[in-house]
């Protein structure tokens, strides 16, 4: 039983990282209709930048913040130079971000090499706590879980309770009308894209503590994010929460109990959702 609880906690940690990555992906898709296939590459780059920053400064939290800010800046640059050239052409945008994946991964390989790296948590986070019921669990994973929940709540507050969030949600529903209300939609787009990249970068920094940072880690996390958003519903923030929980838990149980067939644990929810509800559990329309 204790083993099961530990696996559940592991699954929730994985879900937390998936949520950080997929919420950024789904937010960008919801507002801008951009399918950013470079989202996984941004995650990996964020993790690498956090690694180098921690090497340099020696502080984990500075590393996480630098990774997030650097990726947000990258997002702004990409949106202002590349994405705006293809505004509204969904397939062109998708394919262009696919091209970016090769550029970013190749440059990351040139700088950080192909060996798996992982981030070391500081001080007390490296130790373990004894939970009620006598379960010993690493503090680092609990920290990731708490931080993911905190970021999730902050995002929820931002989207549901602030003026900025209202503009973003209105942008999802009707861009033309938002523009007609005198709101600078261009700026909103750039900011949303930057926010998505920031979340991926922070996700990479946190993910680097439990998953390894290596070439192909980007494709793995992108797959998780894609399955999460298909299951939860493309463009739906709540869908990203629900999808992350389902996919994170199932994927971890799969890896723990049937390692050879773990990928069927990803496949099953995907198939079920596509057959029963192609728009995703909380999606409004098929995108």
């Amino acid at each position, binding site marked *: 039983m204790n083993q099961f609880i530990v696996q559940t906690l592991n699954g929730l940690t994985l879900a937390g990282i998936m949520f950080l990555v997929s919420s950024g992906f789904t937010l960008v898709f919801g507002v801008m209709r951009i399918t950013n296939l470079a989202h996984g590459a941004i995650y990996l780059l964020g993790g690498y930048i956090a690694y180098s920053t921690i090497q340099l400064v020696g502080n984990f939290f500075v590393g996480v913040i630098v990774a997030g800010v650097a990726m947000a800046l990258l997002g702004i640059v990409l949106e202002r130079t590349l994405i705006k050239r293809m505004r509204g052409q969904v397939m062109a945008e998708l394919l262009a971000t*696919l091209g970016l994946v090769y550029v970013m991964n*190749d440059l990351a390989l040139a700088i950080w090499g192909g060996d798996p790296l992982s981030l070391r948590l500081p001080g007390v986070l490296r130790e373990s706590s004894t939970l009620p019921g006598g379960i010993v669990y690493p503090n680092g994973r609990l920290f990731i879980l708490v931080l993911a929940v905190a970021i999730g709540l902050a995002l929820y507050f931002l989207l549901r309770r602030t003026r900025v969030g209202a503009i973003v949600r209105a942008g999802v529903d009707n861009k033309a009308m938002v523009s007609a209300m005198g709101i600078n939609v261009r700026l909103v787009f750039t900011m949303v894209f930057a926010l998505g990249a920031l979340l991926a970068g922070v996700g990479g920094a946190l993910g680097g503590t439990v998953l390894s940072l290596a070439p192909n880690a980007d494709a793995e996390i992108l797959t998780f994010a894609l399955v999460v958003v298909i299951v939860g519903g493309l463009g739906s923030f709540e869908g990203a929460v629900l999808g992350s929980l389902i996919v994170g838990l199932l994927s971890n149980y799969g890896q723990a109990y049937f390692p050879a067939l773990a*990928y*069927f644990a990803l496949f099953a929810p995907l198939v079920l959702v596509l057959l029963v509800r*192609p728009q995703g559990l909380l999606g409004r329309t098929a995108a």
Partner: protein
Amino acid sequence: MSTHAPETRVASTGQQSFLARQQRWVPLLAALAFLLIASSYLYRGGFYGQLVTQMLIFAIAAMGVGFLGGYGGMVSLGQASFLGLGAYGVAVPMADGTGPWTAVAISLVVTLAVALVTGLLAVRVRGISFVIMTLALGQILFGLASSWVDLSGGDNGLIIPVAPVLGPLDLNDPTVLSFAVLVVFVLAALALRTFVASPFGLALRGIKSNEQRLKTLGYATRLHLYISWVISVMFAGVAGILFVFTNGLITPTALDFGHNGIVTLMAVIGGLGTLWGPTVGAIVIMLFQNYLSLYFERWATVMGIAFVAVVIFAPEGLWGLVTKFARRLTRQKPQPGQLGINEVPVGGSAAETDTTMPDPTTEKVQQ
């Protein structure tokens, strides 16, 4: 190969230049030149012979992407994984001691079965969701290949000891095998050409531009897309069988996201919805991978940038550019009523332009 197009198909735009009058010979000559050049490389063998063989194999897989994406409007990002499925379909039974021909049959049946099942999912989504779904399917196949160690040999992959023997032709001879690949390539291209020009192919194009209208007209649109999906996957499966015999080895890497992206890049760089575009794309990208990489370590960066440039500046692809140029040479006017890139509705494929949606009268130039 548009060598047999009937006279009536030639565009009649009144006054035609000399080039325009001679244009039906151009594709025939180009196809012959292509076959001659390819054959000479295959005959000589060695590094370039192997390279051309691999180009032809990936061209077959990319044709599947180009067909489904260009004519059906569904861009697949999982084609390399289906290629890997075809390859493992051969390698897994052969690892258990099955003969090569039986293994080929098993591979075809398995790929067909997977195509039939995944097709049920594929036709339920369109546009972006379709791309994402194929990417997820491909990654799941990759994950199975790397983690189902008992069956797939894990990261070490599986080795193919022998190739089949076809009467007097022993495919264990690399030259014979290379020419067998060329024959399959030509057959695949001819099959696709026939298919695209058939009423089914025309209906498929109609579905791409306006599915609702075709549905109202009584077409079984989902069935059309379903069959197209199965054909596209089978192209990848056949390419996979050729791949495993020419390489003698299959590892999970061949199924990963990078390779899936590359096969899609081939189709898009060449030109979606053109018969020869994916082949051109396969040639260009394999040159990047195998030739540029000899001189420049960061070839993937160059490839990525080149790809982004094609998407922005030449969305019709390299073959699209060629046919556009050819059309200008022969002074044909663009057909009216064709979709420009900016008129593509959200959810549709943006990588299409006038040259990718040919009017039947210009089909000759197109191919």
